[in-house]
């Protein structure tokens, strides 16, 4: 129940006051001009499926990917969209406005009308395209613009979860299904207007979502590493992209002080169940100056988690993952505008026990598929808050830059070289000499 009306707020602005966040020319994460494009084969989930992370991960990834009935249902639904990501483009261009701003506002409004939580638009840099498809064919960048659609994974359910229990995968799948529904609709609509457009979702994507999310101003890269963080939703969202040649006005990246905040806050690193998130400083990785997580550990944990389905504990524990009531907005305002308070806010988050499971709100059932039969799982991750900080040294993390990744086509396992990865990590952990 709201006190004040939203009737004077134009639709394209969406639910959150993103227009009040500072815009900058370049993402707050430095991205150099030599980011290498990577093949889909290098995606860690694909690597797990091909055996690069060992036999156990391969078995779990290929046979038990959806081991809870709700994940199965949601995946089955998403897969009905397989054939509608792309399609024929209308021969004649529709008589629409030439005003690029109007076009952008129209498309954004449409996404908001379709229940997207946020939308941003950017041009697609070449490095955001995968270099090669799963079958090894080279991918030529084919569209100029990206519409980045953000869907919230929902506060209420994650409030009751540990982040790596039996609802975790379904939370992702739910956001994927919603996003796929929106992206496929918008792509189809644009094609009807006479412009090519394709939806890129969890089931099929030719682009890397992370740089596009940054460039379209939907968030900043966080300590979690492979995760963009939005001031209002925190890291609690999934992205879905429509690439198109429909000319539109683009957005700029945002700066809400996150690089400094994450510098002062270690909560995700401390709470990560597999110690994959760095406690240290940023490093240069494939052209990005970022906190680079150990993606092998992270993928392995998610894929082989025996006390839950997958893991998203980092986004559960992040101080930016909030319900969004007035007090949180005030705290957010302070976090953005008063840098000296950031360390305190991060501490306060623990004092107020944010991150503790609200078990009375747990509504899901802990089903697990064991050899074709669902049973109530015997073990469930039941994590709450850690009280002490247990930093890990940088030497325990591995990185796998493009030259250590498998070639576009490689059917056999291409085992990750952990030792070399750890060596690379140490070598790259010196502060980069960017200006």
């Amino acid at each position, binding site marked *: *129940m*709201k*006190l004040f*009306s*939203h*009737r*004077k*707020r*134009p*639709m*394209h602005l969406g639910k959150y006051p993103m227009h009040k966040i500072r815009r900058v020319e370049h993402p707050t994460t430095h991205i150099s001009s030599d980011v290498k494009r990577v093949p889909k084969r290098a995606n860690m989930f694909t690597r797990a499926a091909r055996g690069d992370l060992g036999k156990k991960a391969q078995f779990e990834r290929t046979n038990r990917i959806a081991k809870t*009935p*709700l994940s*199965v*249902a*949601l995946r*089955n*639904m998403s897969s*009905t*969209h397989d054939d*509608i990501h792309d399609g024929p483009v*209308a021969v*004649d261009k*529709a*008589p*629409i406005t030439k005003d690029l701003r109007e076009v952008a506002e*129209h498309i954004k*409004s*449409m996404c908001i*009308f*379709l*229940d997207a939580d946020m939308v941003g638009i950017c041009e697609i840099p070449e490095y955001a395209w995968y270099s090669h498809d799963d079958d090894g064919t080279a991918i030529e960048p084919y569209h100029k613009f990206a519409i980045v659609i953000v869907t919230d994974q*929902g506060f*209420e*359910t994650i*409030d009751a979860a540990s982040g790596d229990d039996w609802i975790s995968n379904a939370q992702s799948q*739910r956001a994927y299904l*919603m996003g796929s*529904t929106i992206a*496929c*609709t*918008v792509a*189809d*609509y644009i094609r*009807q*207007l006479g412009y090519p457009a394709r939806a890129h979702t969890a089931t099929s994507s030719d682009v890397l979502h992370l740089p596009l999310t940054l460039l379209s101003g939907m968030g900043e890269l966080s300590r979690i590493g492979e995760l963009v963080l939005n001031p209002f939703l925190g890291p609690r969202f999934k992205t879905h992209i429509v690439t198109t040649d429909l000319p539109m006005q683009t957005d700029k990246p945002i700066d809400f002080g996150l690089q400094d905040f994450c510098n002062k806050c270690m909560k995700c690193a401390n709470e990560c169940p597999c110690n994959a998130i760095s406690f240290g400083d940023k490093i240069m990785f494939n052209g990005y100056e970022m906190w680079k997580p150990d993606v092998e550990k992270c993928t392995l944990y998610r894929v082989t988690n025996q006390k839950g389905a997958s893991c998203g504990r980092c986004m559960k524990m992040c101080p930016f993952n909030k*319900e*969004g*009531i*007035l007090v949180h*907005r005030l705290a957010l305002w302070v976090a953005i505008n008063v840098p000296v308070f950031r360390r305190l806010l991060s501490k306060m988050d623990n004092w107020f026990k944010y991150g503790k499971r609200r078990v*009375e*709100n747990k*509504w*899901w*059932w802990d*089903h697990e598929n064991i050899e074709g*039969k*669902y*049973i109530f799982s015997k073990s469930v991750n039941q994590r709450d808050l850690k009280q002490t900080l247990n930093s890990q040294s940088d030497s325990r993390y591995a990185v796998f830059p493009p030259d250590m990744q498998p070639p576009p086509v490689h059917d056999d396992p291409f085992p990750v070289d952990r030792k070399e990865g750890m060596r690379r990590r140490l070598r790259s952990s010196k502060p980069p000499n960017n200006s």
Partner: protein
Amino acid sequence: MRLFSNRRRNLHLGKYPMEKLKRVSKTTTFISDDVPRVPKRANFFNRAALGDLGVKAKSERPRFVGKLPFARSMGRVCQAHLPRHKGDPSTMQAPIPENLVKRSEHFKALAYFLNADVVGICEVPEYAWYSHDTDGTEIIPKHKFAIVILIDQGFETLDAASGDDWISNAQSFRAYMWGSNIACTLAEYIRELGYEAQAHTNLESDVLHNPLVMLAGLGELSRIGEVALNPFIGPRFKSSVVTTDLPLETDEPIDFGLQDFCSKCMKCAVECPCNAIPYGEKVMFNGYEMWKPDVAKCTAYRVTNSKGGGCGRCLKMCPFNKEGLVSHRIALWSAIKLPFMRRFLAWLDNKLAYGKRNPVKKWWWDLEIVNRKVTVPKDVNKRDIKNASEKPKAQRLGLYPAETIPDPDRKETEPIDRKTGMKLYEEARQKNAVRIAAKNRTAE
């Protein structure tokens, strides 16, 4: 932005305080025990497609949804979900709690997790099943329980629309699409657990949604007639249904005083662009005592509307269609608790100019597909509010009860008989007047 936390509210209770409404054992709309089942052939959109409503409606019906590029896109997504409506349950049944209340709370919470707006559960009466499929094959009632899901069509966009302009059908389809997402996911999930379940959406439904919406306690039948009304989202919703064999705890119908409110409010009838909503009293129709609209007029208007795609002006104009601010909740509270305020509230709604289009929120483009080309339509319905004191127009409504509908497998045109329809309406009106008079006498 909210002031107070919802963290103490269990997910199965949903977004709206539905648990605070009065529950009753029978629907506030009287339903007799001899409601006839009807075939899908009798659905007026199907009748329009087969020419029963005339040549124009027949030729316009195929492009009813598809003439709006946006609605067409959503239609495609809905189509993709078709294979997930029905299916065989998995052979191994999963263990689930014995406690029926726990079960129902689980499925409701899941529906809310999937962004449903209001959810309720009821047993499916036999009359809620269609009697025959579109191809004429008989439909055997197969599941005992229904999970009924309401999806808000969204206040903001409707705020800018007239209800019958070039966004109308897209608004319906947005809600249909989400309804289909939720219902098909729920049905898949229940089947995965090893129990029978079927999703019923706008594209494919073996059940009539109206009685189920009432029985599951999600709304009362309104003056609009074929539309149930929820106190919090008004008539601004679409429903989707999951039927299942899995035993569940059911809900009871609600009573928030709507029958009395609608008897004192004529706004939908005044504003209906085709004069299909009755100003008069309820009549008996197929066993329901209801305000019965002229569905032939209504369908023909929606299908042949040349200044927009579809029509949902009644749900735009209803005083219960509100943004949901604190002030609206207070008005709602007095509408429910203080019967003498109802006439005043209906009057106030017009006085405060609710129903006027809000141009700030118009974001869509008026586009129409003509001969496979996207064009700018020549005209658009621009309606605001009519004068509240306007006298009821002379109204001639037709009634098309079960005994006048075509055979289940009839492929040929069977034109509606307007003359008989109007005669039947008049008879039903007189009969009910006698019935009410008799009822009043016994009450005295």
